[in-house]
């Protein structure tokens, strides 16, 4: 019942330890620790000739809760929402029972490391992949909740983004189970902690910002104003400014909508070379207009030039007339 440090230590196991399940009697050999969080520790383990990820926790109920989510994901045909579930069991050790579950091992760097290695060129493709996964997840009645770069692994090749930690995944309409402040709209004063698709899309907006600020930043004034000014300070974010701001304000009702806007944005970037087709004038035309203040400035400069020349000439002319 307690947050007991001795129980937590029981979850600390060294490489080579064999974990045998009480109910299904499968044996897993621990290879190394992959990471730990508020809800337990994840290990890389060997099961027959397969490498798997094994998560154990002193809080058995949180394990079961996550297993429920993964089971529900498994029902979605051909989905890549979260890792696939292999086994759930208890490990009896020194009179203590520790619950664990075993899942597919998703290998690869996390989102930010990947972008740092491979460059910004990957941003759009990966965000688009993420949005289509989120769209499927939302259609199943879930909200991912604790969406952050650390929970996003890029596996491959070919590079494919995957969500790995379903600890925050919540049924729509309920209160978000688990979140991380920087990606939480409640923390920034921009919305509630109710599990809605817009909650995840806010986090996607923050992840895009996070890509330009890998070290994140602190909340000062909070609210939209601070985030807007952070976006405007980075040219690589400025081109998505409208999209990110829409996501932060909950203006996208679905991941699909946000996805469409990014796709259109990509189109408009290409089209800034070629003039935009007249039938696609909505958002794109706004963009191109914003990028075209230069010629008007030149025209303004031209006017100044003309007036200046005229004045000088007339002054000289007057001097010439009255001088004589």
């Amino acid at each position, binding site marked *: *019942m*307690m*947050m007991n440090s001795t129980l937590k230590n029981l979850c600390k196991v060294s490489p080579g330890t064999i974990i045998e399940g009480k*109910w299904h009697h499968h044996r897993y050999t621990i290879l190394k620790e992959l990471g730990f969080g*508020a809800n337990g520790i994840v290990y890389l383990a060997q099961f027959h000739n397969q490498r798997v990820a094994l998560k154990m926790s002193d*809080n*058995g*109920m949180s394990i*079961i*809760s996550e*297993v*429920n989510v993964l*089971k529900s994901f498994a029902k979605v045909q051909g989905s890549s929402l979260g890792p696939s579930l292999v086994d*759930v*069991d*208890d490990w009896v050790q020194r009179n203590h*029972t520790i*619950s664990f579950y075993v899942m597919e091992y998703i290998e690869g760097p996390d989102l930010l490391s990947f972008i740092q290695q491979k460059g910004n060129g990957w941003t759009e493709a990966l965000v688009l992949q993420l949005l289509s996964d989120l769209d499927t997840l939302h259609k199943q009645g879930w909200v991912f909740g604790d969406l952050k770069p650390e929970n996003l692994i890029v596996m491959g090749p070919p590079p494919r983004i995957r969500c790995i930690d379903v600890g925050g995944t919540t*049924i729509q*309409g*309920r*209160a*978000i*189970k688990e979140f991380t*402040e920087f990606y939480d709209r*409640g*923390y920034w004063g921009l919305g*509630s*902690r*109710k*599990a809605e698709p817009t909650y995840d899309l806010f986090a996607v907006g923050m992840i895009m910002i996070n890509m330009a600020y890998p070290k994140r930043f602190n909340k000062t004034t909070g609210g939209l104003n601070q985030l807007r000014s952070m976006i405007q300070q980075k040219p690589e974010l400025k081109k998505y400014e409208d999209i990110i701001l829409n996501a932060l304000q909950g203006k996208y009702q679905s991941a699909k909508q946000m996805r469409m806007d990014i796709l259109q944005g990509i189109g408009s970037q290409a089209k800034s070379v070629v003039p935009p087709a007249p039938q696609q004038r909505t958002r794109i035309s706004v963009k191109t207009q914003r990028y075209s203040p230069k010629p008007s400035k030149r025209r303004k400069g031209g006017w100044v030039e003309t007036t200046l020349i005229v004045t000088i000439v007339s002054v000289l002319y007057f001097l010439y007339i009255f001088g004589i």
Partner: protein
Amino acid sequence: MNPGTIKQILLITDGCSNQGEDPIAMAALAKEQGITVNVIGVMEHDTIDEKGMKEIEGIAMSGSGVSQVVYAQKLSQTVQMVTRKAMTQTLQGVVNKELRQILGDSKSVEDLPPEQRGEVMEVVDELGETVNLDVLILVDTSASMKNKLPTVKEALLDLSLSLNARSGNNQFGVFVFPGKKKDVEKLLDWTPQLESLTSIFPKLTTGGITPTGPAIREACAYFKKKRSLRSLLSRDDEQYFEESM
């Protein structure tokens, strides 16, 4: 299953009590009255000494709650996590009790095979979303807490944001100790919103002794007051948790 209302005391402190009754005994008393006591120890750069740590863990243990020691910056996230975790524990207790009635004395959720446990967990999740929750927050305002109070305020606002996203009702009350004249002083009466703290909190004066024990005793009494007032008003006999743990 109607689990009624969950009652919790949330104690936010940064060290050891030095006045009045033993806080661990008071926490045990709270537990007997169906109130869970959670403790959060706030550190700054310093660490909490061993004696303080022992007390924090002791209070939570005998109050069948959750304890956590954190740096001030991590407070918001911890406050909501501790509250939710304790709530889930209490609900698990209730569900366990029901299960025992169905399956026989020695059975609990942990004795079920993982497959069936999943279904029980769904019930617990559902209850956690809909159950009513009363949290009485006890804030230590002894001198050493002075510069941590703005963070505490932020954390409490954040807590109401988290809990109000649930569909169940919430009531919060805030006490500080030591009070101006007494050991404990009421800062905020039962309310579903904590926003009013923004105006009250900056005016708080800090200093003096740390009467943690009396504060817990006073907090328990306050739940009783609320209960009797309620029964006078609406006569709704709610089912409480007294024997569930």
